[in-house]
């Protein structure tokens, strides 16, 4: 019997212009790869800022080829949201697989993650989650 072989985790920039960055996340985003994800996103955002300056408004993450997602992945995503918002960048979670939809629904943070970033004065220090969390019904 062939055991399950996970797809290699990767983060790929699909398209970029001054205001928008599209990134595809492939494979398992879990305990073993969440640090890689955080690092890759940091590098990607940094490279974009080097090239275009602080013009980025929208970061689109494409999850179509995501294999698995666990709480460590969610933690990394929360960290990304925190950093993105401090730079005035909004997160967009595109083409979410069913398990990701369910995870975001159960943990109640889908709206928090995709909340539009405040384009006021970008705070340099990563204060704890600026902006209001969406109230639950």
């Amino acid at each position, binding site marked *: 019997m062939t*055991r399950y072989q996970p797809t290699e985790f990767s983060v790929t920039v699909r398209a970029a212009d001054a205001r928008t960055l599209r990134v595809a996340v492939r494979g398992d985003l879990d305990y073993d790869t969440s640090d890689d994800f955080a690092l890759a996103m940091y590098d990607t955002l940094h490279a974009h800022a080097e090239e275009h300056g602080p013009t980025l408004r929208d970061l689109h993450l494409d999850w179509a080829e995501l294999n698995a997602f666990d709480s460590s992945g969610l933690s*990394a995503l929360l960290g990304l949201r925190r950093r993105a918002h401090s730079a005035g960048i909004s997160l967009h979670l595109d083409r979410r697989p069913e398990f990701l939809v369910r995870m975001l629904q159960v943990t109640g943070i889908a709206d928090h993650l995709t909340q539009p970033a405040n384009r006021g004065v970008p705070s340099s220090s990563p204060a704890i989650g600026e902006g209001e969390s969406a109230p639950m019904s």
Partner: protein
Amino acid sequence: MRDGCRTTIFFRAAERWWGAQCVPPLVIPSPGTSERPRGGDIGTAWSDAPCPAVLVDSGGSVVEANDAARALFGRHTADGSAQSGLPHWLAEAHRRLGTAGLPAHVVSGAVAHRTFQAHPSPGEGGNVVWWLVEDTALRSAEQALRSERERTALLADISGALLSSLNVDRCTEVTARMAADHLADAALIVTPAQGRRHSLTHAQADRAVTQTTAHIDAGSVPGLAEALQGFPPVPTRWIDPEDLPDWVVPPGFDRPIGSVIVTPLPGHGVPAGVLILLRSSTQRAFTDGEEIFARLFAARAGAALSAARLYAEQASITATLLQELLPPRLERVHGVEYAGAFRASQDHERVGGDFYDVHPGADPSKETVVVLGDVAGKGLEAAVLTGKIRTVLQALLPLSGDHHQVLGLLNDALLHSRHTRFATLVLASARRRSGQVELRLTSAGHLPPLIIRADGRVEEADTGGMLVGALPRIAVRSTDVVLAPGETCLLYTDGITEARGGPLGDQLYGEARLQEALRECARMPARAVVERVQMIAAQWLGEGRHDDLATLAITNPVGGHGALRIVDGHEDRRRRREER
């Protein structure tokens, strides 16, 4: 060109050589040919030959010796008069040559601390010329190679023996034993002080290794205090064996100490201890080579000991954490059945994510508070956060009537500016009233509990909310559920639904399969329900690795009221800690 010159010179020398023997160049004399050197007809080539040569007659008397031979054998043989002038081994070989006839083998032996191979070439009338070719350097090189190989093999043995164990005591014992067997007459390992006492491990050949702890003065052995701090070893010659305190000498070692080596056992950053080698005065002192080898030995032993010590510390930390994380064993409380099961991840670094607790109400009219949760991440950090959550929740128990307030305060307590480590959990407050169990359930970002009805229906509790510890404000929604006799509310972590396995090994178990499996758990006791779920998960996983799996069932027992008991709950544990 220079090579050519050399070649010419060589051939000339050869011509002289062979000419002196009256044999044409490049004709190898075979035994029995008549062209042999004759006693008085040898000439300058013979006397100037770089290797010693002696002409010995059939009676064993030296007839003639060349300059090199005279220089070697001294004046006894220089006059060529005495048979005893030949070294014993050569005289013996000559005698055998006479009786056994030719050809003879090359013999070898020592003269004046040098070793030679003696090649006989027979001459007329039973005379034999013995050519002595020195091989002292070759032999000492061979000897050095042999001992180097032995040491390398010994080092490999040491590494093998030491690295096969991660037990500190065992490693120390093996080190002392090997040191005593291969390096010295006796060996002592002094470990860094634990408190004020040092552990002393004595070993000597043919005796059992003994371990004691003692209060010792490290300053009483030259170099020991420094070695215990990891400083380089003191040269052996600075240590006077007379000055050694008694505790250095192994019990029962009755010979006087002749020489000593004190060398640190280098660990990872901190010294793992000190090795003291002792040799009795009846043996020769340690050579420089042996001292260097002792340090090589100590380096390997130190690495192994240090690894064992680190492992022991790690294991003790893990054991301590697991002890704290171990969920309480549950039974009935105020007429409600509770059963929990926890299957820790088999990878130790993955331990620490899931937890549950049951806090019994003070009396049957008070609610019993149950919490089951899952901390993001794994390992030590997750374990620490788990401990924090459990402690905060216990402190907030008086407020448990309001789940929203409890979770909001918990969220505040966990918020951290640096990381986004969070937890998801379910709070349940349970109370038995007129045959029914009233539950108030609140999920904070956790999978909603499943209600197993008596008729086999499985419902998802209508509660939802946001995870705690990552966002400045959270919102949650509670729900009230009533359990009739035989009905169960199951709290579980995603270790169950995210168990990856099945027939192809790649499928998630998922919530749908779990709900389907729970249909068969209607009217089962709480313990049977959790054990069934754990068994199903184990079957699904097969050989696959998994995270922590936690399940907790709250059941309204079919048989009605039972004993009020929690085994090994918080009270028990606290009492045990106090007793310690």
